[in-house]
């Protein structure tokens, strides 16, 4: 590297993004546990609860685990896990 160059590679999670994620995760957790009281049909709250899992998982993967700026393969691998597993579970529950 030439003298005087500045390396700029600081795309890390900041406190504001982490705080927003934390608040969203708490809010979604509270909503998830009270879903059966607001939604009568089990199929609906099963799907709603699993959609909440996907949203929460994306927050943890992208923000807390800092995979948002990781190589695409690794980010997609973890996002696939947090999407496909709830999908498989919902198929099992609804069939």
């Amino acid at each position, binding site marked *: *590297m*030439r*003298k*005087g*160059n*500045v*390396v*700029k*590679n*600081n*795309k*890390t*999670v*900041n*406190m504001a993004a*982490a*705080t927003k*994620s*934390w608040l969203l*995760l*708490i809010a979604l*957790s*509270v909503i*998830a*546990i009270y*879903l*059966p009281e607001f939604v009568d049909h*089990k199929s609906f*709250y*099963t799907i709603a*609860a*699993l959609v*909440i*899992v996907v949203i*929460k*998982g994306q927050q*943890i*993967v992208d*923000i*807390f*685990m*800092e*995979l948002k*700026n*990781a*190589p*695409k393969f*690794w980010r997609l*691998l973890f996002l696939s*896990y*947090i999407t496909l*597993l*709830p999908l*498989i*579970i919902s198929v*099992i*529950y609804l*069939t």
Partner: protein
Amino acid sequence: MTNPSIAIELPDKKLPGDLAMWFFILAELTVFAIFFIGFSVSEQLNAEMFSQGKAQLHQTAGLINTIALITSSFFVAIALTKIHKAQAKQAVLLLLTAKAFAIIYISVKIWEYLSLFEQGITIETNTFFTLYFLITAFHLMHVLLGMVILAFIAYSAWHGKYQNNEISGFEAGTSYWHMVDLLWIILFPLIYVI
């Protein structure tokens, strides 16, 4: 003539921590995925038993534990931002706060187990409680291992190990802890809610 500084945007696609830790995390996630799918299939085969079993669980305790783990993960994420800024002492304090929330999780989980034991419910009661105790206890073991890892990186940070942006060990430890959180957010609705 002075040499002007040139800002170079390096590719930001860097995997945090060690590659080995990510493979380990993937292996752990796979094991738990098998547990979760097995639990779901068993529930479909024993719908009445699982419905009664879930009714005997303490949902508020589950919610408290969810909030405790998410909050713990939040403090670990913030600790990493401090390490990025070379503020090791602050990072250690945040890790200790994260561990305090993990202790809340463990305490509530033990209270849950004891409450069930007092009702005469054990791992041998039925298929639901066999899976409940197996999956939650297996997860609890990961929480305990995670606490050991957090203690190790906190100790290392306190002694100035993570300097000059050589923080892959710290990142690996925090990634493991977030995995524990990630697993719980699937486990909680599956066993307690739906």
